[in-house]
């Protein structure tokens, strides 16, 4: 019988099956014809009935075993093996339940044979769960028909036993009539049954063992699991159950590309939303590359930022002011400051933002410089997300506005909500940062614009922000800085150290705040917008740096300062790490805390330390607001560019701010410009400002960041330092902050200098001072 078109008719392969079929059917028929009638009469009619049923069963299984597709794999398309054909290794290993199983490449079928699959040379097919090729049924025995084969064997054995027994009974009763037809036939049948009895029973027994062990004939014969473990076994009972009760798998081969309605594919094609993806923004602040991975949550930051409470011009934030308020206030202050300094409107701030923003969202960056911190942070994130905003950061023209930085920073505080609205809080943070950065860079006035929100802070910070990078800036600014700011600056130094009451205030702000009444530290006259009150406060205390010309007076100085900052940051980090445990608490704390506290919590804390030489920013300040910090940290990471001094602050602040608005205040602080979301962080973030502070600030994370940023970023001579500490801070913050969402950022912030590889699209924006921000989407 020709099997298939194209195949040569090979009669020889049908001999066994024909023989088997002939014997089976023939013998049984003879049995029924010659033996059964007497049995029926003698014993009972149940005998033929029983034999009939068994025989039927045998036939059914035999047919199924013969005609059923064993599980043949369709040969693979060329497309599938395109890669494999030439350079494919012969074997591919796969682990099954802990055991390495080798899959061999099938040259005929063009795929790697799945486990337990083998190629049948007779059928020229790969068969799933290949057992063997049975000539008696002229078919492969595989997954689909193994059960029928096994049952066939069982039933055949039973049948043979039955036939033989009843035949024997007949013969024994007809011993004297052995020559009669019936007896002869019965004898012949008995002989056939007896003849095949041994092989069939042997095979049945063999397969019963295989079933119990969960192996196939192929595996048993080739000794695959000899002495080893069979990964395919399900236990004895499980194996038996699998063989007998498993559902019947439909065949693969004869499947038509089902007639289903065609699916039309027409362009334009939807592409996944980039915004949905994490956008890592790397801001290389001063060469510090920190990437902040921002997820959509960033947007939340925005929410946190400015919009809420509106930026009222620096409402004096009570020490316990809620972070949020603080943040907002900070933002506003920032904005105001920004706006004031640069232009009455946002544009200026934006312009400068980039420079500031070079620091990753870390609003922290210069606590002093950009007050934007907490808000900024959020905004930064938001901004980052939008892309535009970030750009602002980066592109900050920081350099352009030397005055801005100073002036606006200071001014912004009191100013009415500056463009805060225009930039979402982020911008404020950014501006702050930028401002700071700028300052660091070189008295970049830009800072202010960046921290739109934190403009008020900025102004404050500017003098203060020197903390991180702003130190030098401060010095520079000082002259330009209004006296208030100067005072603030001075005051601020202390800020970082203390967890300023306004957690939101970025560290910088802390410093800036110094002058603000809110500042807990009270060291700084609250001339600055209360927004960052807490922050500033914190900062202020440590900020004595406001005039630390040391750092950023000029580039060289900044470099030195950055180095110092770095060291400080390292110290701070350590402290912060210690305090990290308290970070979470700190967040809440941060809220209550003024910005100064933030140092600990967020960038805020850091910057002060970082920026300000006044190491009085005790780590404790940081400690309290670790939570904020953490969040800000992330931001900071991005924003590290805060400035040479407080690069960390920025980022950390931002991140923390972004993270959790909870400590609104804290977020504000933290350089929160960066964080926007994470309020608590702010203080920490502002390390950039003060290198000194970093050590002081308990929040080492930001410092860490800063340091990292510093290291990485050496782009900006002045800013690197800030970045360094900032990064350090950020990192420390990250570590410390339990709920730092920095997770992803952290890695980035941790001094990844521009991890461009991280994302497919990386936008590089160069900010003031050479800071390069990379935003990868």
């Amino acid at each position, binding site marked *: 019988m020709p099997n298939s078109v194209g195949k040569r008719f090979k009669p020889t392969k049908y001999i066994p099956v024909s023989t088997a079929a002939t014997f089976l059917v023939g013998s049984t028929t003879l049995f029924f014809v010659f033996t059964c009638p007497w049995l029926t009469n003698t014993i009972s009619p149940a005998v033929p009935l029983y034999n009939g049923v068994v025989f039927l069963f045998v036939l059914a299984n035999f047919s199924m075993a013969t005609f059923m597709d064993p599980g043949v794999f369709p040969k693979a*398309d060329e497309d599938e093996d395109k890669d494999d054909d030439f350079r494919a290794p012969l074997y591919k290993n796969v682990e099954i*339940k802990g055991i390495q199983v080798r899959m061999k490449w099938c040259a005929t079928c063009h795929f790697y044979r799945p486990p337990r699959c083998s190629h049948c040379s007779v059928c020229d097919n790969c068969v799933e769960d290949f057992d063997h090729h049975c000539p008696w049924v002229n078919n492969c025995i595989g997954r689909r028909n193994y059960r029928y084969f096994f049952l066939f064997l069982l039933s055949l054995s039973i049948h043979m036993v039955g036939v033989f027994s009843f035949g024997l009974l007949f013969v024994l009763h007809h011993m004297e009539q052995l020559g009669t037809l019936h007896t002869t036939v019965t004898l012949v049948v008995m002989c056939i049954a007896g003849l095949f009895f041994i092989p069939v029973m042997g095979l049945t027994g063999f397969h019963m063992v295989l079933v119990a062990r969960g192996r196939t004939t192929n595996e048993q014969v080739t000794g695959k699991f000899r002495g080893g473990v069979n990964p395919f076994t399900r236990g004895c009972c499980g194996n038996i159950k699998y063989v007998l009760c498993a559902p019947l798998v439909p065949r693969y081969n004869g499947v038509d590309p089902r007639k289903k309605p065609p699916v039309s594919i027409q362009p334009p094609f939807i592409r996944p939303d980039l915004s949905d993806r994490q956008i890592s923004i790397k801001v290389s602040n001063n060469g510090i590359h920190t990437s902040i991975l921002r997820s959509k949550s960033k947007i939340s930051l925005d929410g946190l930022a400015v919009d809420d409470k509106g930026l009222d011009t620096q409402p004096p934030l009570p020490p316990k002011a809620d972070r949020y308020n603080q943040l907002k206030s900070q933002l506003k202050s920032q904005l105001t400051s920004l706006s004031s300094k640069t232009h009455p409107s946002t544009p200026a701030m934006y312009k400068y933002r980039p420079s500031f923003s070079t620091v990753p969202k870390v609003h922290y960056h210069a606590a002093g410089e950009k007050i934007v911190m907490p808000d900024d942070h959020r905004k930064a994130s938001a901004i980052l997300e939008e892309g535009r905003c970030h750009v602002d950061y980066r592109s900050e023209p920081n350099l352009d506005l030397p005055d801005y930085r100073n002036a606006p920073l200071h001014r912004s505080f009191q100013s009415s909500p500056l463009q805060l609205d225009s930039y979402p809080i982020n911008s404020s943070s950014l501006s702050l940062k930028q401002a700071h950065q700028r300052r660091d860079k070189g008295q970049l006035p830009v800072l202010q614009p960046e921290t739109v929100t934190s403009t008020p802070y900025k102004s404050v910070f500017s003098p203060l922000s020197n903390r991180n990078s702003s130190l030098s800036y401060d010095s520079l600014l000082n002259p330009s800085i209004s006296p208030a700011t100067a005072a603030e600056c001075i005051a601020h130094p202390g800020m970082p150290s203390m967890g300023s009451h306004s957690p939101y205030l970025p560290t910088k702000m802390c410093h800036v705040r110094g002058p603000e009444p809110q500042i807990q530290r009270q060291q700084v006259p609250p001339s600055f917008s209360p927004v960052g009150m807490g922050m500033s406060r914190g900062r202020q205390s440590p900020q004595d740096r406001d005039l630390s010309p040391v750092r950023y007076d000029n580039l060289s100085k900044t470099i030195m300062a950055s180095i110092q900052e770095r060291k400080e940051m390292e110290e701070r980090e350590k402290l912060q790490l210690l305090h990290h445990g308290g970070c979470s608490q700190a967040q809440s704390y941060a809220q209550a805390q003024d910005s100064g506290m933030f140092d600990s919590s967020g960038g805020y804390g850091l910057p002060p330390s970082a920026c300000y030489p006044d190491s009085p920013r005790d780590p404790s300040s940081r400690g309290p607001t670790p939570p904020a910090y953490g969040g800000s940290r992330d931001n900071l990471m991005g924003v590290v560019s805060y400035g040479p001094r407080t690069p960390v602050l920025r980022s950390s602040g931002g991140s923390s701010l972004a993270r959790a608005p909870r400590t609104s205040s804290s977020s504000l602080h933290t350089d929160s410009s960066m964080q926007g979301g994470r309020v608590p962080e702010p203080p920490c973030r502002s390390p950039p400002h003060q290198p000194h502070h970093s050590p002081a600030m308990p929040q080492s994370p930001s410092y860490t960041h800063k340091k990292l940023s510093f290291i990485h970023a050496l782009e900006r001579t002045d800013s690197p330092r800030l970045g360094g500490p900032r990064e350090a801070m950020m990192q420390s913050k990250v570590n410390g902050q339990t709920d730092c969402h920095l997770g992803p950022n952290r890695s980035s912030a941790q001094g990844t200098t521009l991890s461009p590889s991280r994302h497919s699209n990386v936008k590089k924006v160069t900010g003031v001072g050479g800071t390069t921000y990379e935003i990868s989407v």
Partner: protein
Amino acid sequence: MATEFHNLQELRHSASLANKVFLQRDYSEGTTCRFQTKFPSELESRIERTLFEDTVKTLNNYYAEAEKMGGQSYLEGCLACATAYLIFLCMETRYEKVLKKIGRYIQEQNEKIYAPRGLLITDPIERGMRVIEISIYEDRGSSGSCSGSSSTSGSSAR
């Protein structure tokens, strides 16, 4: 029909097969049918990860349900035995039912999610359940109108 062919040609002009991604089987738990949920890099820019993972996970669940050795499969086996397997001529097994469900699900996913993104999933049954083939189409410019048969079915043909 001429129209269909025409449409198909237009379709081809507008979106042509650029690449194919093959999702391999996950054998870590034995030979039960599971596909790897690892997101292939070629699809990075084409579809959201979550959607993709949802699809694969749903498919895995379907296959697990199909292969479940529970009471129903046992009863089916007994019934089949009792009727000398003649029951298979008139009744559809559980596995087949689930496979049909899977086919419908894939069709629906293709229509709703993948085709708009220029992707097409091929039912793994057509590949012997070894891989899930996802065809990636590129926009070649002029858009044809159309509703040609999916190229995957075409491509699935060997």
